C-alpha cells in the first residue's frame, strides 16, 4: 500500500477539519489484478451519516472495494483512510455486515451470542464479567428489534432475522462506518425493506457512514445519498438521479444501456454482462438484455 506521510491529506486539501468530517477518504486509488484494472484514480470522500451505494456488474470490483476499506486488500496505489486513520485490518471504527450465510442447526450460538461476538469476540480468553455484557447485548438486540428471538439458536432463524442480528453485531463497536456486502441477498422483499430501513436509520440518526455494496439498488433507493457505479475498469460517482440515467451508464459501459423508471423503481436494460442492477419482477436476473 502506498501511504506517504501526505496520504492523510485530502486532494486539494483545505484544512484539517475536513479530515475529521469525512468518515472515509479514498484518494488516487488504483486496484487491479494482473493485467486487469478494476479502477484507477478513484477519489471519494464519504461524510458521516452519508449512505453510499456501490453498484456494478459481477467482477467490477465491488467486493474488492470493500476489502480495501476493511484493510484486507492492499491498493496498487493511493490511500484509504477510515475516520482519519489509514485503513487496516480489524479497524474498530468499522462495522461489517456480510451476505446472509447458512448456519447449521447445531451451531452452538443463540441470537444473543452472535451479537455478543461483535462486542468482545476478538478478545483473548473467556468472558468473565457477564452482567455488563448481557446489558449491552440486550441494548443492541432492542435497537434492531430482535429481542423476541434473543435465545433462539441462530440455525433456526430466518434469513431476515439473521441479517438483523448481523447489523446488531456490526453496531456493537459503535462504528463510524458500516460496510455492507450484499446483505439483502436471498432475503424476501419484506425483509429486504426492513433490513435496509435499519441501515438507513443508522446513517440518519447516528451519523454512521454507510457503504452498501449491492447488485440491486431498488430496495435501498430511498436511503441512498450517492452511488459509486463500477463497470469495466471505469467508475462514476453521483446521486442516484445523476448516475442512474441512460446517458451516464451508456457512457460508462461504452455501449447503449437503457435506464427505465417505473413506479419509483429503476431498471437497467441491455447491460453488456449478464447481470442487471434492478431486474424486472418476474424476469430472471440472469436473462440478458431485452427484458423490457
Amino acid at each position, binding site marked *: 500500500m502506498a501511504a506517504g506521510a501526505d496520504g492523510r491529506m485530502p486532494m486539494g486539501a483545505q484544512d484539517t477539519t475536513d479530515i475529521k468530517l469525512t468518515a472515509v477518504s479514498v484518494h488516487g486509488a488504483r486496484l487491479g489484478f494482473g493485467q486487469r484494472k478494476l479502477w484507477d484514480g478513484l477519489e471519494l470522500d464519504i461524510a458521516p451519516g452519508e449512505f453510499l451505494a456501490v453498484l456494478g456488474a459481477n467482477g467490477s470490483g465491488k467486493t474488492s472495494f470493500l476489502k480495501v476499506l*476493511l*484493510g*484486507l486488500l492492499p491498493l496498487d496505489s493511493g490511500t484509504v483512510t477510515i475516520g482519519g486513520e489509514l485503513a*487496516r*485490518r*480489524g*479497524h474498530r471504527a*468499522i462495522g*461489517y455486515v*456480510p451476505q446472509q*450465510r447458512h*448456519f447449521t442447526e*447445531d*451451531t*452452538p*450460538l*443463540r441470537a444473543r*451470542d*452472535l451479537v455478543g*461476538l461483535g462486542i*468482545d*469476540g*476478538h*478478545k*483473548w*480468553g*473467556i*468472558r468473565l464479567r457477564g452482567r455488563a455484557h448481557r446489558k449491552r447485548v440486550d441494548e443492541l438486540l432492542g435497537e434492531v*428489534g430482535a*429481542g*423476541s*428471538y434473543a*435465545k*433462539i*439458536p*441462530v*440455525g*433456526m*432463524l430466518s434469513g431476515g432475522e439473521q441479517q438483523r442480528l448481523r447489523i446488531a*453485531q456490526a453496531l456493537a463497536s459503535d462504528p463510524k462506518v458500516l460496510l455492507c456486502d450484499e446483505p439483502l441477498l436471498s432475503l424476501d422483499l419484506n425483509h429486504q425493506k426492513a433490513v435496509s430501513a435499519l441501515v438507513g436509520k443508522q446513517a440518519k440518526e447516528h451519523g454512521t457512514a454507510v457503504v452498501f455494496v449491492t447488485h440491486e439498488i431498488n430496495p435501498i433507493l430511498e436511503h441512498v445519498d450517492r452511488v459509486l457505479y463500477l463497470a469495466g475498469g471505469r467508475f462514476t460517482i453521483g446521486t442516484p438521479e445523476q448516475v442512474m440515467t441512460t446517458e451516464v451508464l451508456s457512457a460508462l459501459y461504452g455501449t447503449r444501456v437503457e435506464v427505465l423508471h417505473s413506479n419509483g423503481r429503476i431498471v437497467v436494460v441491455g447491460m453488456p454482462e449478464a447481470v442487471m442492477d434492478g431486474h424486472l419482477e418476474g424476469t430472471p436476473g440472469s436473462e440478458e438484455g431485452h427484458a423490457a
Partner: protein
Amino acid sequence: MNWTDFTSAVFNFTDYGELLPLFRDSLLAGAILGLVGGLIGTFVMMRDLAFAVHGIAELSFAGAAFALLIGADVIFGSLVGSVVAALLLGVMGVRAREKNSVIGVIMPFGLGLGILFLSLYQGRAANKFGLLTGQIVSVDSTALSVLALTALVVVVGLVLIWRPLTFASVDPDIATARGIPVRALSLAFMFLLGISVALSIQVVGALLVLALLITPAAAALQVSAAPRMVVLLSVSFAMVATVGGILLALGGRIPISPYVTTLSFLIYVIARVVGTVRRRRGWSVRTAA
C-alpha cells in the same frame, strides 16, 4: 460361551470394594480425559472436524506402533504422530472439501504404516491390539502425572484462545474482517487437537477416539445451543462415559473401550430424544416482544 459366561465376563462386581481403590488413578485419568474430550469436542463440532479427528487418530496409531517397534515410549510416539498429522491438516486443508480429501489420503496411509510396524514387532500381542482398541485400565502414577500435565496444556491453551476461536469457528469471514488471526488460531487449535487425540487413544484406542471427542459434544448440541451450557454438558457427558466406563469395566475381562463407547452412545441417543421433544414443543418460538 453361554449367557452366564458372557455376563460374568462383561459385568462382574465381586470383590468390587477391594478393586476400586486400586483403580483410583485410572478413574482420575478417565475424568481428565473426559474433561479434555468434552472441551475440545465442542470446537471439533463447530469446525466440522469429525473426519479430521479420525484421520489424526490413524496417524497417531502409526506413531505409537513405530515407537513400540523401536522400543521407545508409546505415548510419546502417538503424541508425535497425531500432532504432526494435525498440523499437516491445518496447513494443507484450508477449505472443508480440500481438507476432507487430504484426510482421506492421509488416513489409510497412516493406518497402513501402523499395521506394517505392528507386524514387524515381536513383542506381546496385547500391546498391538491395545493401540487400536484401547487397553490402559491400570495407569501408574507417573503416567497419570504426565497425562494430567498434558491435559493441563490443552485446557489452558483452549481457555486462552476461547473467544477468538469461537468467533473464527462459527463465522470466519467476519472474524477475518475484524482482524482476528483466523489462520493462526486454526493451527493453534489443530495442535491442541493433536495432543487431545493422542491422550484419548490411551483409553479408547485409535479406532474409537470419536466416542470421546465427538459423541459427547454432539449429544450436548442436541439439547442446547447456549454456549456455556453446551460446554458444561459436553464435559459432563464425556466424564460420565469415561469414568462410568472404567467403573463398569473393573470386574470384567474385556477392555474398557466397549463400556466407554456404549455409554457415550446411550447418552447421545437420550440427548437426541430430548432434543427432538424440545424441538416439537417449539424451541424456536418467539416471545411476545
